[in-house]
C-alpha cells in the first residue's frame, strides 16, 4: 500500500477524514476495441464525499461499475480496506459493505416502499428460507430488528407517509429517495450514487443534497457519487475526480478542479487533435 495515501485530512468545514478506504490503481477497462477507462488511479478516503465528474461518455458509470465489481478491469488493481480485492461477483461486493443506487432506478415496482427497504437488509439476515417461512424464534427476532433499522432509515429520509405505498405509484423524485433508503438499509461503509439528482427539479435536488450530507454526517458513510449538476457536485463533495475520454484529467478539491485548465477545456470544449 502506498503510504502517502493512507493519511487523512481535515475538510474546510472541520470534518475529520480518515485513511484510505478504497484505492483504484492504474485501472484500464475496455470493451472489445473500445477503451472505456485508461490507466486511472485515485483513492476514496474514509468519511469523505468523493465525486466523479466528466462530460457524457467520459467513463464515469464504467468507473462506478468497476468499484461495485460489476465490471472487471483488464488491467489494474482495486484495493479495499487495505487489501487487494480479488475478482468477485457483485453480491460478494455487497457483502463487503458497498451499496449503490442506479441511474435509472432499479426498485421492485410491485412491492411497497417498506418491503423495498427491507430487501436492503438481506445481507444482515442469517436465518434460512424455511425458518423465515415459519417465522418463529430467531427468524422473528431478526425480522423485528431489521424492521427497526429499516424504520429508522424511513424516518431519516422522511418517507413515513409512503411506507405502505407500492413503489410503482410514486413520482420519480421519491423513487430516487426510496432507492437511497434501500442502499442505506444495507449499512454500507461505501455508498455509490449514480446520478442521484438526474431528472429532478430544484426543490427535489435541494432535498436530496440535504439527505446526502446528512447521511454522511449522521452515519459517517463514505460516499462516491457521479453527478452532472456542477453546482451540486461543487457544493457537496470534498474531493472531485474529473474524467474525459476515459482518462483522468483532474483530481482535487472543488476549488482546485474548478481552476484546472484541462477541466475547463473539457467542459467548454476545445478541439482534440
Amino acid at each position: 500500500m502506498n503510504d502517502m495515501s493512507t493519511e487523512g485530512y481535515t475538510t474546510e468545514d472541520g470534518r475529520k477524514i480518515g485513511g484510505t478506504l478504497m484505492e483504484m490503481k492504474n485501472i484500464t477497462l475496455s470493451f472489445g476495441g473500445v477503451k472505456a477507462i485508461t490507466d486511472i488511479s485515485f483513492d476514496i478516503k474514509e468519511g469523505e464525499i468523493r465525486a466523479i465528474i466528466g462530460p457524457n461518455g467520459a467513463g464515469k458509470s464504467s468507473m462506478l461499475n468497476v468499484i461495485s465489481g460489476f465490471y472487471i478491469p483488464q488491467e489494474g488493481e482495486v484495493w479495499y480496506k487495505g487489501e487487494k480485492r480479488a475478482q468477485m461477483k457483485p453480491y460478494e461486493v455487497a457483502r463487503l459493505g458497498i451499496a449503490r443506487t442506479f441511474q435509472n432506478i432499479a426498485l421492485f415496482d410491485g412491492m411497497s416502499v417498506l418491503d423495498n427497504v427491507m430487501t436492503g437488509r438481506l445481507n444482515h439476515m442469517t436465518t434460512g428460507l424455511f425458518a423465515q417461512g415459519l417465522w418463529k424464534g430467531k427468524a422473528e427476532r431478526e425480522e423485528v430488528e431489521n424492521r427497526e433499522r429499516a424504520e429508522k432509515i424511513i424516518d431519516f429520509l422522511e418517507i413515513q407517509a409512503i411506507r405502505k405505498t407500492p413503489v410503482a405509484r410514486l413520482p420519480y423524485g421519491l423513487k430516487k429517495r426510496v432507492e437511497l433508503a434501500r442502499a442505506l438499509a444495507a449499512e454500507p461503509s461505501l455508498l455509490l450514487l449514480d446520478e442521484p439528482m438526474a431528472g429532478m427539479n430544484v426543490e427535489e435536488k435541494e432535498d436530496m443534497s440535504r439527505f446526502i450530507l446528512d447521511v454522511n454526517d449522521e452515519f459517517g458513510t463514505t460516499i462516491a457519487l457521479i453527478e452532472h449538476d456542477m453546482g451540486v457536485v461543487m457544493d457537496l463533495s470534498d474531493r472531485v475526480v474529473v474524467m474525459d475520454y476515459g482518462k483522468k484529467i483532474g483530481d482535487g478539491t472543488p476549488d482546485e478542479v474548478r481552476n484546472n485548465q484541462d477541466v475547463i477545456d473539457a467542459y467548454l470544449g476545445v478541439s482534440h487533435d
Partner: protein
Amino acid sequence: MTQSSQATDGLCSVPALLQRNAQKFGSKAAYREKEFGIWQSWTWAETEKEIEALALGFINLGVNEGDFIAIIGRNRPYFYWAMVAAQSVGAVPVPLYNDASAEEMAYVMEHCGARFVVCEDQEQVDKVIEIQDGLHQFEHMIYVDPRGLRKYDHHALHRFVDIQAQGRATYYEWIEDLKARREKLTYDSTCVMLYTSGTTGKPKGVVLSNRNIIETAKNASEFDNLNAGDEILAYLPMAWVGDFIFSVGQAYWTGFCTNCPESPETMMTDLREIGPTYYFAPPRIFETQLTNVMIRMEDASPFKKRLFDYFMAHAKRVGPAILDGKSVNAWDRLKYKLGELAIYGPLKNTLGFSRVRVGYTAGEAIGPEIFEFYRSLGINLKQLYGQTEASVFITVQPDGEVRADTVGIPSKGVEIRIADNGEIFYRSEGTFVEYYKNAESTASTKDAEGWVATGDAGFFEPDTGHLRIIDRAKDVGAMADGSLFAPKYVENKLKFYPDILEAVLFGNGKDRCVAFINIDLTAVGNWAERNNIAYASYQELAGHPKVLASIQSHVEEVNKSVAQDEMLSGCQVHRFVILHKELDADDGEMTRTRKVRRVIVADKFKDIIEALYDGSPQISTKTEVTYEDGRKGSISATLTIIDAKVQPVTTQKVAAE
C-alpha cells in the same frame, strides 16, 4: 374564588393535575406518538417522571420563576411535556407556530423576552440562530431531533434527552426546589401565553391563567361528558389556543390520551389507526376529506357508485334525525342500518371517524352540505364559537340542537351580551388576564367589569336562543346607498362550492360589490382531468374559459340566494375575477390560521380592484410572491374579468340590529 377552588378539589394548576393523574390513572396511556412505524406510548405515571426529569433539568439550567420558555415544534409529546415542565418550575410556556418565518418569531420572542427555547429540529434551531443577535434575553436552546446538528456550537445548545438526564442526575439537588415551586402555583398564576395570529397589526400575547384553562376545560368536558377513556389526535398547531385546551386543559382535567401523528403527511393514516373519540378540525379539513371521498367515488365501479349514491341519499334524508334522536319510522331505520353496514360504517372507518363521539368544527363557517354529509353518516359533528381571549369556548351546540347556520348557546359559565351595533361581548371564568405588555389593548378589549369585545357581529335567534354570527364587526360596512355590507356572508356562500377555495368580497362604501376568487386546485384539477382539459399550472387552469364559466354560474346562484335576504341583498357580486395565485400566508395575504387579511389583499391587488370597478374586460398585473425558503419572485398574468348576472334588489331597507 374559594368556590371554584373547591369545585376543582384544590387542583389549581396543570402540574397539580398531572400529579393527580399519575396517581389516579397511573397505568393508563397519557401520550402516544407514532415513531418508526409503531405507536410508542407513555402512561400517566411515566409522563409524570419524564416531566419531572425535564423540570429538574430546567432548574439545573437556570430557569427562574417567571421566565418565558418559547416552544417551537409540531405536536409531539416532548413539547407538551416541555410546557408542563415549564409550568412546574414557575416559568411560562409560550408555544409558537413552527411554520412562522424567522422575522415573525423574532418579534414574539423579543416581545416576551424568552430566555429559553425548546424546539424540534435543525430547521427551527437555524431560525433561532438567525435571529438570536436581536434577542436580548435569549440564552439557551434545547432541541429534540439531533439530526444535522452535531457540528453546531453546543455551548448554549442542548439535547432534550441530555437536559432530562441532567435533571435525573441532579435529582437530590433540585427536587425540593421543584416541589416548592410547584406548590407556589395558584389559580391566578399564568398557565400559558399564546400569541394571537394577528389579522391586523402585530401579534398580541394573550395571558391565560390556570383559572382560565382549568375552569374552561372542566366546564367543556362536563358539557360533552368527556372522560379518561377518550382519545384525541393532536395535530393542530400547538400555538393555537384550541390545541392547548384540548390536548393540555381537557386532557389533564379528564385524563384522556393525547395521540401525536408521525408526521404531518401521515395525519390521515394515523387518524384512521387511532380512531379518536373526540375530534376537532377546522371546516377546511372536513371539506378536503369530503372532496377526496367524492373524487375517489368517481373512480369506483358503477355498482359501488350506485350503492353509494342510493344510501347517501337515504342518509341525507333520515341520518341527522336519527342522530338527534327524533322519531323516524321503522322502515327508514332498517334501511339506515343496512346503509351503515354497506356504506356508512366502512366510509367512517376510512375517514378515521368510526369512534368519534363528539366532533367539533370552528374557526370559520362550515358549508351546510359538508356539515350535513358528516352528520348524516352518524358523526356527531357540532359547531362552537370561541377565541383565544376566552380560552376558546364562548358558545357551543348541545347534542340534538345542531344546525349549520348557528353556533349554539352560551357555553357553561359564559355570559353573552349583544351591543347596540351588533357586536358580541362575553364574560366568563375563561376570560383572559391581559395582553402581555400591552395595557392599552387590554383596556380597549376588556372593560372593568370583565366584558370582552369579540369583534364579531351577530344576534340571538329569538325562537331558539342560538347565536348567529354575521361577520367581523369591523368588516361589516355600508354600501354607497346605505345598505348593509357583510362580506363574509357572501364569501362563505361562495366557498361552499367545492371548486372555490377562497373568495374575497369588496364593496364597502361603493355602489356595488366585486369579488376575487381562488379556485380549489384539487377539485378543479380533477374536473379538468375528467374533461380532457390540459393545464400546466394553477395560473393556466384558473384562466381557462370553462373554469371561468362554471365559476360564473356559481356566482350567479349565490347572487340569487343573497337577493332573498332583505338585509344583505345589496351584497350581490356584480363582477369578479379568478386570481392567478392562491392567497398565501407566506405572502402575508392570510394569517397562519388561513384567514384572509382584507386590507393587505386590497392593497396588494388594487390595480385589479380598480379594473373590476372601471368596467375593463381584462387586466394585466404583476404580483410578488414569496417562496417557502423566503426568496422572492414575481408572476405576471392577464386576467379576464367576468360580469355576473345580479337579481333585482327587492327592498332597500337599511337595518341594523
